[in-house]
């Protein structure tokens, strides 16, 4: 990977030698070496995310989802373009004959039933739409907003590690960069809301900014807690800190280090969903309240950019969640073995694992989206300030306490009881933290449940199955 960076620098130098200013050469080389591959990987995945979301939603809603678009149209287009001297009807017949051919037919069926081909149709439709700028909009803001949204979604990917060697830039302040660059989305949505000259968009924009700014606090606290636990802000090192030798490498993951980590993971996940404006926190878009919120006036590719930004952000959340809690790109079992492979093989395996973890996180996000109703904006804020921030703080302190006690235990043990490092000792500390903290949390939950009023009889009747008649 060092070689990759070297060639990037060499290309930048080459651009400069062609007479371009130095900074422009760097930017161009950066686009070629980093931005294009990133887009090439993330954009299709984000697009596929959209299709999978539609399929998942359909499955939960007794529907089929995208099921008709195949490759016949694409083949027709290709044949027509490839054989311009032939009549259109003849080309079409040829394309249809092609589709009837076994493997092509199989591919067509696969693409049709999974709805993947729909992605191409949607994309073409989106690009082909009229670029509509309503009268009275603030032209600059209206036009700039989609680009900012895309930028805000992609910039954090710079620091996301995909393998030991594949990372855009392993900044020592990685997490801070993620939080800062992600904040660009708030600006984009505000610009779109304000610049569209529409009352609904403005309401949506205002809601979004209030919400995103509020939810940066719990997200930041969660990140801080994990950073404290791992002792680093660099994402690459954070992954390395979760390395556990041996077959069961998932034992090193942050998620199972302490019950506080589990709560923290939930808090982070919720807050991150809220930050990227997805149900149940999609108050800014809220199609049943604000028509379509901040992107009411956006059409065609502008809307497409916002949609792409949204799906890219879900992908980012998946990646961050994986890095913070699920050991990043590490395999749940046999990580030691993968690390001993040659760099290329290691990279391929790790990228696949990372993508799988992201996809699972995205999938859960979609699952949530099609399950829950939407919060009201004041409830969204209340949830952030009264529930998530305190929870994150409690977990932060809990983790700090755990670390402190762990260190104390080690100190005591090595000072008085043991003379040599022991493999059992971390395990004992780990079990102790689970027992103590977990016990306290469970006790609290049980006490809280007992203190509550019973369920109203009407609700109990509605939610329990009717007695079977004999």
């Amino acid at each position, binding site marked *: 990977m060092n070689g990759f960076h070297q060639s990037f620098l060499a290309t930048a130098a080459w651009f400069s030698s062609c007479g371009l200013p130095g900074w422009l050469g760097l930017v161009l080389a950066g686009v070629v070496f980093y931005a294009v591959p990133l887009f090439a990987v993330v954009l299709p995945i984000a697009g596929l995310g959209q299709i999978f979301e539609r399929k998942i*939603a359909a499955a*939960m*809603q*007794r*529907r089929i989802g995208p099921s008709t678009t195949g490759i016949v149209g694409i083949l027709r287009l290709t044949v027509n373009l490839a054989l311009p001297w032939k009549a259109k009807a003849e080309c079409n017949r040829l394309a249809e004959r092609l589709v009837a051919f076994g493997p092509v037919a199989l591919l067509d069926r696969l693409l049709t039933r999974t709805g993947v081909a729909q992605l191409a149709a949607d994309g073409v439709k989106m690009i082909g739409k009229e670029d509509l700028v309503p009268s009275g909009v603030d032209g600059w803001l209206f036009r700039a907003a989609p680009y900012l949204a895309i930028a805000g979604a992609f910039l954090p990917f710079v620091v996301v590690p995909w393998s030991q060697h594949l990372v855009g830039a392993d900044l020592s302040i990685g997490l801070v960069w993620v939080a800062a660059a992600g904040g660009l989305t708030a600006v984009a949505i505000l610009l779109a809301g304000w610049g569209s000259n529409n*009352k609904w968009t403005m*309401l949506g924009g*205002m*809601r979004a900014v209030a919400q995103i700014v509020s939810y940066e606090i719990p997200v930041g606290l969660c990140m801080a807690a994990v950073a404290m636990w791992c002792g680093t802000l660099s994402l690459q090192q954070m992954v390395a800190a979760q390395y556990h030798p041996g077959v069961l490498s998932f034992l090193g993951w942050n998620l199972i280090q302490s019950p506080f980590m589990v709560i923290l993971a939930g808090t982070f996940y919720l807050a991150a969903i809220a930050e990227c404006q997805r*149900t*149940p926190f*999609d*108050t800014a878009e*809220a*199609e*049943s*309240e*604000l*028509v379509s919120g901040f992107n009411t006036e956006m059409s065609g590719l502008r809307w497409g950019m916002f949609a792409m930004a949204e799906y890219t952000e879900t992908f980012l959340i998946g990646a961050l969640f994986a890095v913070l809690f699920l050991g990043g790109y590490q395999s749940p079992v046999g990580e030691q073995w993968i690390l001993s492979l040659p760099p290329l093989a290691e990279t391929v395996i790790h990228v696949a694992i990372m993508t799988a973890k992201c996809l699972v996180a995205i999938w859960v996000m979609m699952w949530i989206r*099609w*399950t*829950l*109703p*939407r*919060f*009201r*904006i*004041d*409830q969204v804020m209340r949830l952030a300030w009264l529930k998530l921030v305190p929870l994150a703080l409690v977990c932060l302190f809990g983790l700090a306490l755990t670390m402190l006690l762990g260190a104390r235990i080690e100190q005591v043990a090595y000072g008085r009881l043991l003379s040599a490092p022991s493999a059992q000792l971390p395990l004992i500390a780990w079990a102790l933290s689970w027992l103590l903290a977990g016990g306290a949390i469970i006790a609290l939950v049980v006490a809280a449940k007992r203190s509550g*009023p019973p369920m*109203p009889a*009407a*609700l109990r*009747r*509605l*939610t*329990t*199955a*009717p007695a079977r008649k004999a």
Partner: protein
Amino acid sequence: MTVEAYTVDGDLMTLNMGPHHPSTHGVLRLVLEVDGEVVVSCRPDLGYLHRSIEKIGEFLEYPQFVPYTDRVDYVCAMNSNHAYCLAVEQLLGSVAGSEVKIPERAEWLRILFAELNRISSHLVAVGAFAMDMGAFTPFLHGIGLRELVNDIFEKTCGARLTYNYITIGGVAADLHAGAEAEILAFCDTCEREMVRFNRLITANSIFKGRLAGVAAVSAADAVSYGLVGPNLRASGVDFDLRRDEPYGFYSRVQFEVPVGGAFAGARGRVGDSYDRFVLRCIEILESVRIVRQCLEQMPKSAAKADDPVGGWQVDANKQLRKPPRGEVYCRVENPRGETGYHVVSDGSRKPYRIKIRTGSFTAMSIFEKLVPGLMISDVVAVIGSFDIVVPEIDR
């Protein structure tokens, strides 16, 4: 938060919610004055779906108006049919000699289908309400159940939405073959699926939190604003025409009339949006009970071989009958509450005047009082919880 507790700061923004708004359920327009997210005043504006149905009635013969009652409230066309036909039958019965004799089986079929339609109407109401609250999945499950009702209707009366089934003097057709088994199977499915529906949305704490205490209507307000049906009962007023003024064969079936009781728990209040929602869910189950009883008690075949279903339209020669002079007001319990048909006859073949009283219209009149002080998202909740059907408002 009430509007008294909230002091308006700075300029207000006028916001047109509707007529083209995703959750005004058609083309209702609410002119909102908002201060940020908080609504300061709300003025409903109607007339976007006015089709002059009452006026058209004056140019049609009595039986010809039945298809128009389908279109007054197309979510529960059966119940509208029932109300109008009962009104005309009362009119005919006001003078000895011109009464219509309705076969017993037809009477059972009437309330059987009215209750099935109540189920499907409430399914739309609760499903669409969930969708307004941002949960799309429950809506499609509600609609999915409703499809089963529509299938039954389609097989018996030939249409899925505008049934024109209940006629003056009877019903249009007997049950199709195998209908009893189908309806019983639907009852089981409905009860089973409603449990899942309720676990998915009704018991959801976000949903509860959105609705608890929002737009609570006191019993006194509910009565003085003329709320009817589930909206009235949610406020704690125990009044149901099916039980208190039984029409048709409703006196022969057992059912409970649920009333609101702050179901949302600590934050809930009697008559809030959540109560209205839960009440509709309970009424679905009660209607299933009535449907089962209808099927049990209904004569298994037609009592008289010559006329199994009765009805004015069935016999072409009776078409020229004229009701006596007079007027009648007949009210029935629709899914959206009391629906009244005031029919005035001048003795000719066409009514002199038909006036329709609908539940949605009065429910909408309370918006002006309820909405100020709520947030924009709550306006959606209010519209949905009152189960507004816009064609019923405008007629």
